[in-house]
């Protein structure tokens, strides 16, 4: 994935399958790994994309690689199987935990930035890599709250996990924006400290403010400051691929096209619409 420039892509969802199918310049898309059956038929729209030669990246959301417990081998096997089925050059998951003590959180939760959390994350990434035929990229999440007593800065925490696992970085630029805004820190400072040459691809999404906190909703339009951050990122090191994530309240096709064009303009890649 890191050797080929894919340009602008989009997260494939059944609700916008028709829209995605009609994007003439599309070269890559992402699919939520848990939404694809390991053995049954692939969703119709997804098969069409594959036949067109569009690269499809399975994106896991339920492995819980940052959990203190060992990752469930069935979930790893499912991810590996989906990757094989769609011929993916890469898969991705999050630096997060999603369950603990037998209870599902239903959401991606932030890890404490501590040594033991790095160890737990690294152990689970290695267990996953052992079953995968392709590399994995890891995505730092947006968090509304932080744990007390963090031992590492965000950049050091991410870099150490990547260094110890050899994983690629899936950088969500909207998460960088959300975290910096909610913590009152400088997003450019984080970009300057992250290993940008390790980026496999980039997520872009919209959000909304409630009671002074910015929520990374994926159901609103991408705000201008996030597009500006894309430009800043590309000035430092242009990633090979960037994609829009939209997960509900789908706007008319024209608005989605404008968002894809805005990402192309901000990154200097060709429009795909």
């Amino acid at each position, binding site marked *: 994935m890191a050797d080929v420039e894919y340009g602008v892509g989009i997260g494939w969802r059944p609700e916008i399958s028709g829209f995605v199918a009609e994007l003439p310049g599309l070269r890559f898309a992402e699919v939520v790994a848990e939404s694809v059956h390991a053995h049954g038929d692939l969703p119709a729209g997804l098969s069409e994309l594959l036949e067109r030669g569009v690269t499809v990246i399975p994106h896991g959301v339920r492995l819980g690689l940052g959990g203190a417990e060992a990752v469930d081998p069935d979930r790893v096997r499912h991810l590996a199987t989906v990757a094989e089925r769609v011929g993916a050059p890469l898969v991705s998951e999050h630096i997060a*935990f999603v369950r603990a003590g037998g209870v*599902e*959180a*239903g959401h991606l939760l932030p890890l*404490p930035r501590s040594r033991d959390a790095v160890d*737990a994350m690294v152990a689970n990434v290695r267990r996953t890599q052992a079953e995968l035929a392709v590399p994995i990229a890891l995505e730092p999440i947006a*968090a509304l*709250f932080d744990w*007390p007593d963090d031992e590492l800065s965000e950049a050091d925490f991410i870099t150490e996990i990547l260094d110890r696992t050899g994983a690629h970085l899936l950088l969500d630029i909207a998460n960088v924006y959300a975290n910096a805004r909610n913590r009152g820190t400088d997003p450019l400072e984080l970009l300057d400290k992250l290993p940008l040459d390790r980026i496999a691809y980039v997520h872009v999404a919209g959000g909304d403010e*409630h009671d002074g906190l910015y929520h990374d909703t994926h159901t609103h339009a991408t705000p201008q400051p996030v597009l500006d951050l894309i430009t800043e990122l590309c000035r430092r090191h242009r990633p090979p691929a960037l994609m829009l994530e939209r997960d509900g309240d789908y706007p008319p096709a024209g608005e989605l096209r404008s968002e894809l064009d805005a990402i192309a303009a901000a990154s200097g890649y060709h429009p795909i619409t």
Partner: protein
Amino acid sequence: MTESLAARQAALVEALTSGKPVPHGIDGFRFEAARTALLRKRAGEVSRQWPMLAASFGARWKREFADWAAARPTQGSLRDGWDLARELHARGSLKGAAAEEFAGREAAMRYDGASAPHPRRTPAWRSAAGAVVVQFRGRVRVIRRAG
């Protein structure tokens, strides 16, 4: 001796999903914002699986679902909606299209309330407000009573 990562993670998930107090050292306002966002996201996911159930609440859906779900960790959106629909059905407050949607699910799948629902292998029927829902070989049909 610091608390283990496993214990800290378990306490956090329990607080988030069971309405328990915010874990020590975490900003209460931000944690509540995360809890509310999570419940609203769950409401959105359940409304995709149970569109008629959600529609029956109109504009109150997200708030009502969030109240119901605040102390119930998710079992996935299919089961979450199913559990809520069963409660409403037992109280006799499931009406119209939401009642038909519920009857259709009950006829199509076997759900024990504790593990993943499975498709029924045998024909089944359920009555809903003003209609009967029949499932035969996996196909579900709604038969409305005349008048």
